[in-house]
């Protein structure tokens, strides 16, 4: 799991060879607390596969979240080759997230 910050975002996400699913969250957001463990589980299940998982605390980092126009959390953005390919928000079922990931990895 990548702990992303405004400082390391470019290196870890934009310049990453593997695609990255970024979970934008904050400690005071109830739905984010639900999604946190799900993203942790997915990161474990996909370890060694061609995808990385990262979390960015929007409370501590503001430059990147505002750059991507995030005004609602939890928000997830799937980055590939430095570009945001898909963005979605709110609580997601693990199965649905998995289905999306499988789609991206194809």
């Amino acid at each position, binding site marked *: 799991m990548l702990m992303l910050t405004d400082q390391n975002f470019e290196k870890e996400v934009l310049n990453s060879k593997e695609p990255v699913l970024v979970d934008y969250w*904050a400690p*005071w*957001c*109830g*739905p*984010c607390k639900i999604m946190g463990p799900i993203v942790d589980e997915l990161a474990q299940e996909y370890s060694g596969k061609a995808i990385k998982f990262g979390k960015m605390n*929007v409370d501590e980092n503001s430059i990147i979240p505002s750059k991507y126009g995030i*005004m609602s959390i939890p928000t997830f953005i799937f980055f590939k080759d430095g570009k945001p390919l898909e963005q979605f928000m*709110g609580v997601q*079922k693990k199965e649905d997230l998995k289905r999306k990931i499988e789609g991206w990895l194809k």
Partner: protein
Amino acid sequence: MEKVIIIGSGPAGYTAAIYTARANLAPVLFEGAEPGGQLTTTSEVENFPGFAKGVRGPEMMAIFKEQAERFGTRVVAKAVTAVDFSGRSDQATAAGATRGLVTRSRIFEVFCEGELYESRAVIIATGASAKRLGLPNEKKLYGKGVSACATCDGFFFKDKVVAVVGGGDTAMEEANFLTKFAKRVYVVHRRAEFRASPIMLERARNNPKIEFIMNTVVEDILGVDEGRVTGVRLKNVGQGLVPGRGGAPASPADGRPFGSVAPADSAGRQGPALPSFQDDKRVLLCDGVFAAIGHEPNTKLFAGQLELDQKGYIVTRQGSTMTSIEGVFAAGDCADYKYRQAVVAAGAGCMAAIDAERWLEE
């Protein structure tokens, strides 16, 4: 085969789980798409007895869950996708059925993303969800300034202007909460009176950052081209638009252009001098829109199988939580259009557990 399946993970579902687990019914509880339910999107819960200092909604639901699991509830982090309450009889009781003993031998089927669970009894506690405004551009701007969760998203509106639509407790709570971040919060309400409780309304009225726009509905949300909310188009539906503090209605014929500086209220406070309204056009410029216009029950799964009332709430028998099908019980906001309180839902969850336990014993 389960003895009891509980669908939903709010106060009703978890209380039903605590009681059925303690009655050795080994309940299986499906958390659903929104684990913890509506309370996970509220900030502070101040009216649940036992939490004298108040408690954060998500924290309270974590405690409920812990208590249910302590007695052996199996919590499944999945959402039920379909149910079949038609009550196929199993083979062991098919013989009984021929003797007219049909009802008690029913097996209820609950499908979870293709997986089948069978149960002797089902407790439905699927709750309700906040209604959307249902406007043309609402969906396009969801997450771009349109939000369904003030506690989650208020943070993104630091020093911005937001509109809260609605006139009940939820609207007042969200408006008050949003003033922690926003520089100005407009409460847009379609009537001249409020449904909100006096304590919540008083708090909002005393909040200098909150401004009320009465007798007004939001016709559309603007900003699709910009990719973020830039404003809302308002329509007056009452005896004149009433900007002000929700007190005495200002006369629409006082000569002020729409949305100009509101007159000082009875307390001598000057209204905002923000150029938030564009004259004549009836547009309120704002960066965020929060809908708090009520709820609808999460009962689509059961349509055609259980008796629902006109608004979609599950009908239960007088003095009981039993639905139109014996062995299927309903508790909480999915069956309660009237009170919609966590403590009432918890109470109903307890009733459903006891009803289910007795029904299974018979």
